[in-house]
């Protein structure tokens, strides 16, 4: 295709426009210049960076963000803007000078020059008296009177007067009301995220009462599904997820907060309380568990626990995230821009930013997480009440106490024998029983030969690495240790014990199994080891570091290593040993394995040997220190068999206790430290460059906190919901509007500042904001108000003329037509197929996703990480799906769900081929199509056309047309004929998903209907509210 001339025209048209005045220019001719709408956006966009609120970078002492800065003389220099005097206004000369080098903004800056239209607008404004206004959103909304309108009959509630007044001014008419069935589908999705059932649809259509629609709205508002739908947007804003989000992205647990949000919406908690509890529930008098759970809002952010992460650095990041999120969600301001410098466009000083962040600086946390609890949570967290598990923990505590007392009594008893032991400790030889190998095996072409003395000699190939497997039997009970000897052999290089140069041989692994179970080995000692040896690696091999025990340079001497068992071992049957020889060029040559039941099997470790050689405390300088004496006693008493048994019991109890404790759900919360941390401005935002100290306070350009308000999170939250706050209510109602119409009255839902777009209907926004406060922040009432307006109820059909005039539907001369969200698309498929499980709350679930997604990006190769849920957890609502931040569920992100790494208040809305592939091929949707097909056959009627019409109606809520049914039926017939011939293909298609298939339906028929169901689930109309 080629780009037609209409394109050129449109580009030209677009070029004339500047942010904020598009609507004005587009919709009416030569309006009087309005500072807030027409001028401030120009000044903000082109001038503020160097002549704005940022004092550090302000040039020539000139600023355009305040009236005095622009209109007052600066010393000897005359003002740049003189009201009514175009000739004297220097600004006009500078924005359009004869010499381009003189131009402002300067050619070398990143800012584009003013367009001719903009210059003309600026000129007209000066001519008209250069009237100044402060930025609209920083003044508290005043409830406007409802404007007069001609077509009063259209008005259903005050919203409509504002919409209609504007339409009438623009010479436009509202669209007729949407068909009732489509309207019910629209409002059902908007309020509950699900389509109406046929029963709900039929009941609504049968209800002829004048308030049938309002009744339907009330039904939807009381549905538990309402809270689940409303929660999704809030979860985006709160950057809620089930993992911490950095690097290995470990799991956390904060779903109790998610459930709190759903409950809060369903119980219609006022927005003011919703705000206060989430920001400061813990600071309320006699805070309840629920109020503490609510404070998880500001613990949802990512936490970097990467090894090596510097705690102070990420403490600063946590604070920045909290302040920026607070700014976006409640204030609609990009306060995060003031992290490194004063805000370039809005009057938010860098100091203000850190003063705001200071409210969140007293949380008892570690910047890089610190150590996690059994649920992956970093402090502060709250263990949820869990009486059964708590009882288990308490019982184990009691048992532990008793066991520990016994242990301690025994230790005292044993200590009496220490002096006798010390006499022989260094010369003591355990009684070793040499094991005779029953079988020998090695990989890499190495051969193993048993020698008469029980030792084994390796030969054959010389691979870089080999693992030897030796089996042997023993009748010994209560085994306390194993000995591995490296024995010199004349046949080996240099007469050493290994096959490497000079007889080098390195043992990299020693592993014992009894009855297939790996035996825990607690300690390894050796009579001699090379300098490079790392003995512990023999017991705990690292994936890469193939080192262990070598005897260089004493290869010609017999040396041995001893591994102690953690628990006394009385094997029944064969012992299997795996001995690693994986150090390239140092294969093990000759070795021998022995076992013992002696109480002190090991070589006395060097540190203990040193203490033993030091005389017992006699007051002299050379004598044993108290610390050493204690260590030796500890060493001594831990060995006897009886002591080991008791100690094992303690360990076992302790691990059972921990297991029970780890099962108790916890959730991350906020709590204050007794001593607040000091807060500083961070110079250029860098954690290691603290500047001036600041205290917690709100930005200076907004109404102050009451003098007696606490300077903590509670005071902050109360300040936000104070009716005097100009932003909170406006920002909230704008997001609600956006939910229904796709775009807010302020299009930039995340920026109500100078660079944000001015509201399309400023009076309506203020009316809604004041109404919200007047109603006591009644969230459900506000939703009801919007969806029962005539504006919302309009049909979304648009004539080409109207679409051209108002492509984005900012004037609301028609109803909204918006693609469903990722969650709605999936939940709808579950709903119409009958798969949906409406169980609420609890730990997040893991529905279908392609194999290997987590594993591919993971640090741990070959380890399975994603465990798919089974049974009903596969079909829960999407709000309960497990959210792994670094690999979020693709069926969600493909449909524009954000990654939840940072606060998002407006989702993208894209259309991509990947969406088509997902809807057509994802196992989840294939299964849903099959279940949908089963319903078609069973519930849809007798004939194919009836069934298809039934299905299309279920998915769209409106009756199917004959031509649509014909298309579907022809496709069905074609594929049915194929499946009748190729029944194997039919069976394969029907095998998708875990849900059982209805065997009563013929496979070919069900497969064909499954394809028809898939066609329906893929229709643009079906994934759209229209």
């Amino acid at each position, binding site marked *: 295709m080629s780009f037609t001339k209409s394109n050129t025209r449109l580009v030209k048209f677009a070029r004339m426009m500047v942010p904020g005045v598009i609507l004005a220019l587009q919709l009416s001719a030569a309006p009087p210049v309005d500072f807030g709408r027409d001028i401030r956006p120009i000044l903000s966009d082109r001038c503020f960076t160097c002549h704005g609120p940022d004092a550090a970078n302000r040039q020539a002492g000139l600023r355009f963000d305040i009236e005095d800065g622009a209109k007052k003389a600066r010393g000897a220099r005359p003002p740049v803007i003189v009201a009514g005097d175009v000739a004297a206004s220097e600004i006009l000369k500078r924005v359009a000078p004869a010499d381009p080098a003189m131009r402002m903004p300067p050619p070398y800056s990143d800012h584009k020059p003013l367009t001719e239209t903009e210059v003309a607008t600026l000129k007209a404004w000066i001519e008209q008296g250069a009237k100044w206004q402060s930025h609209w959103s920083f003044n508290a909304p005043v409830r406007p009177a409802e404007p007069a309108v001609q077509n009063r009959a259209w008005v259903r509630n005050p919203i409509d007067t504002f919409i209609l007044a504007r339409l009438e001014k623009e010479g436009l008419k509202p669209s007729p009301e949407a068909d009732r069935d489509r309207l019910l589908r629209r409002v059902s999705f908007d309020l509950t995220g699900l389509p109406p059932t046929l029963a709900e649809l039929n009941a609504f259509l049968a209800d002829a009462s004048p308030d049938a629609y309002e009744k339907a709205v009330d039904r939807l508002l009381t549905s538990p599904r309402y809270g689940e739908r409303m929660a999704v947007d809030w979860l985006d804003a709160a950057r809620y997820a089930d993992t911490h989000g950095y690097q290995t992205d470990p799991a956390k647990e904060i779903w109790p907060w998610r459930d709190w949000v759903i409950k809060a919406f369903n119980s219609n908690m006022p927005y003011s309380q919703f705000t206060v509890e989430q920001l400061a529930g813990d600071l309320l008098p006699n805070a309840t568990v629920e109020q503490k759970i609510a404070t998880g809002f500001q613990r949802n952010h990512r936490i970097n626990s990467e090894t090596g992460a510097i705690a102070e650095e990420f403490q600063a990041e946590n604070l920045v995230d909290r302040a920026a999120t607070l700014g976006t969600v409640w204030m609609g301001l990009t306060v995060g821009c003031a992290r490194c410098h004063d805000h370039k466009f809005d009057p938010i000083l860098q100091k203000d930013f850190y003063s705001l962040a200071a409210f969140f600086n007293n949380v008892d946390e570690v910047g890089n997480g610190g150590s996690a609890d059994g649920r992956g949570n970093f402090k502060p967290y709250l263990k949820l009440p869990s009486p059964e598990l708590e009882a288990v923990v308490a019982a184990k505590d009691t048992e532990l106490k008793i066991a520990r007392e016994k242990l301690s009594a025994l230790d005292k008893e044993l200590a009496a024998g220490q002096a006798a032991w010390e006499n022989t400790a260094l010369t003591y030889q355990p009684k070793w029983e040499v094991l005779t190998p029953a079988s020998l095996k090695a990989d890499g072409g190495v051969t193993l030969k048993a020698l008469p003395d029980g030792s084994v000699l390796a030969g054959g190939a010389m691979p870089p690495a080999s693992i030897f497997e030796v089996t042997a039997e023993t009748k010994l009970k209560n085994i306390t240790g194993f000995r591995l000897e490296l024995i010199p052999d004349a046949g080996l290089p240099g007469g050493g014990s290994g096959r490497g140069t000079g007889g080098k041989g390195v043992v990299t692994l020693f592993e014992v199994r009894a009855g297939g179970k790996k035996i825990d080995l607690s300690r390894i000692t050796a009579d001699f080891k090379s300098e490079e040896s790392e003995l512990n690696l023999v017991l705990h091999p690292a994936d890469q*570091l193939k080192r262990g025990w070598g005897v260089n340079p004493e290869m010609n001497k017999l040396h041995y290593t001893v591994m102690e068992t953690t628990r006394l071992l009385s094997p029944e049957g064969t012992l299997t040993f795996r001995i690693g020889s994986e150090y390239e060029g140092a294969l093990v040559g000759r070795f021998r394995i022995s076992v013992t039941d002696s109480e002190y099997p090991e070589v006395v470790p060097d540190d203990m040997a040193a203490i033993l050689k030091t005389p017992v405390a006699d007051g002299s300088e050379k004598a044993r220190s108290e610390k050493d004496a204690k260590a030796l006693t500890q060493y001594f008493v831990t060995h006897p068999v009886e002591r080991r048994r008791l100690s094992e019991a303690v360990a076992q109890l302790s691990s059972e206790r921990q297991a029970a404790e780890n099962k108790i759900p916890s959730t991350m919360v906020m709590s204050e430290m007794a001593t607040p941390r000091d807060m500083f401005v961070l110079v250029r935002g860098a954690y290691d460059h603290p500047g001036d100290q600041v205290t917690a306070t709100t930005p200076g350009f907004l109404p102050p906190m009451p003098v007696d308000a606490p300077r903590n999170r509670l005071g902050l939250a109360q300040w936000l919901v104070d009716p005097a706050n100009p932003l909170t209510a406006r920002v909230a109602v704008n997001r609600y509007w956006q939910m229904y119409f796709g775009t807010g009255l302020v299009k930039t839902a995340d920026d109500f500042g100078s660079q944000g777009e001015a509201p399309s209907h400023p009076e309506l926004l203020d009316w809604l904001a004041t109404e919200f406060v007047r109603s006591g922040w009644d969230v459900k009432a506000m939703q009801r108000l919007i969806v029962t307006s005539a504006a919302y109820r309009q049909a979304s059909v648009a004539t080409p003329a109207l679409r051209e005039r108002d492509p984005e539907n900012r004037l609301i001369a028609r109803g909204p037509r918006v693609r469903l969200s990722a969650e709605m698309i999936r939940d709808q498929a579950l709903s119409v197929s009958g798969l949906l499980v409406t169980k609420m709350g609890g730990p997040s679930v893991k529905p279908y996703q392609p194999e290997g997604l987590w594993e591919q990006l993971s640090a741990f190769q070959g380890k399975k990480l994603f465990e798919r849920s089974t049974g009903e957890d596969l079909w829960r609502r999407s709000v309960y799906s497990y959210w792994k931040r670094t690999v979020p569920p693709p069926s969600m992100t493909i449909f524009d769900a954000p*990654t939840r790494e*940072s606060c998002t208040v407006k989702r993208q809305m894209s259309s991509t081929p*990947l969406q088509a592939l997902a809807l*057509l091929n994802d196992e989840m949707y294939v299964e849903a199509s099959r279940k949908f097909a089963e319903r078609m056959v069973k519930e849809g009627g007798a004939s194919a056309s009836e069934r298809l019409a039934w299905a299309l109606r279920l998915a769209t809520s409106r009756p199917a047309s004959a031509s649509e049914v014909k298309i579907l039926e022809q*496709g069905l017939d074609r594929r049915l004929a194929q499946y009748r011939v190729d029944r194997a293909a039919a069976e394969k*298609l029907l095998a998708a998903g875990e849900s059982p298939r209805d065997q009563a339906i013929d496979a070919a028929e069900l497969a064909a209907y499954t394809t028809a169901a898939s066609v329906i689930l893929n229709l643009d109309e079906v994934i759209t509210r229209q």
Partner: protein
Amino acid sequence: MNPLREHQLMMTRRQLLGRAATGIGTVALGSLLAGRAEAAPGLPGFPNFPAKAKRVIYLHQSGAPSQMDLYDYKPGLTKRFAEELPDSIRMGQRLTGMTSGQKKFPVAPSVYKFAQHGKAGIWLSELLPHTAKIADEITVVKSTFTEAINHDPAITFIQTGSQVAGRPCFGSWVSYGLGCETDDLPAFVVMISRGTGRKVDQPLYDRLWGSGFLPTAYQGVKFRSEGDPVLYLSNPPGIDADRRRSMLDDIRALNEINEQQFGDPEIVTRIRQYEMSYRMQTSVPELTDLSKEPESTFELYGPDARKPGTYASNCILARRLAERGVRFIQLYHMGWDHHEGVPRQLPPQCLDTDQPSAALIQDLKQRGMLDDTLVVWGGEFGRTVYCQGNLSPENYGRDHHPRCFTVWMAGGGIKQGLSYGETDDYSYNITEKPVHVHDMNATLLHCLGVDHTKLTYRYQGRDFRLTDVHGTVVKDLLA
């Protein structure tokens, strides 16, 4: 987003098509869809000036290769074995939490031999014999530096220009600005391989190919070696090509009916997306099927080339993607994070990557594509000269080092055969010609004909760009 740009985009990409459709009726719509629509255009005015490179193949070595064992030759260190790193060099600079507690910072000289290669005499270690063969094609920048000291922030920084999540990545910026030359494949493709040097290594994150605040359509599409090459690409079992086509025909016919009634250009866009998804079902398997590659290809790319999912195999795929008009091809090779046992872990990593990387350059060159393809090889930061953990003459580990590391680049717009920048005797601080990550990204964009200060997107009231408010094109690197 800048409303003006948004408007233009909407007009060019969607509404124009929709307008044409509603204006000229559905007969025309039908014929329009039956033929090939034009691939997605870039922004008006882009490229800003004639581009040397049309596309990028970015070979990211995740985990951070050790520069002084591969490129940054420091012969003087041999005699300083185990000496404490002088304070005059370290200058109190911050260290990661992994070594900041070490009592000693002993110098660990590289165990590898170095030699000079090519006309410019570029120093390369013995671990890179194949790279040596392309010495006359590449520019080696030894003076790259970054700001982050740990992996997640650093790799996020080099890919998105910010350490904090949420910004679009390089590939998203480029496909947003320059559009796509193919309508059979995505504009931006990502492939991942695992290193054999260190099997438990740094993870990766979807955000590294995410579009941030740019529209979702610009995010990278991950090509996988296991399962479907593109998520959900294959028809489910029991749906063959004929059934799929007939289903798509039904979907289109029904969507067209709805389009007639509602006139929303989004519906036309969706119809197009379904057609593209159908084409991808053919074009992607054709692309990933290497069976028709001649034997010489596999010889060139080395022993791993036939193994799907290896770096070598991905390099072949990268060339095939480039041939088919894909704008940005991003490879990630894991396994370079060598805190310990550099001499054990580094050689296998080089075996993985040295030959395929060099082969890619040679292959592109012999096909005449190197002139307009920009190839970049590098990690997210460098490694320390001081040893992490125990030091012996044969064995040492190295911690993260943000203050200098080596990146090489080649192809469209880049000088052939150049060693650029110098570091001090310890490969610790840059002494000559520093190249900040933002400078590097600005330079790479320049090769694509993009002024890095002009490729912007308005988000939350600010015009964001890949290079934040920084970055200077390093003219010395340009051909």
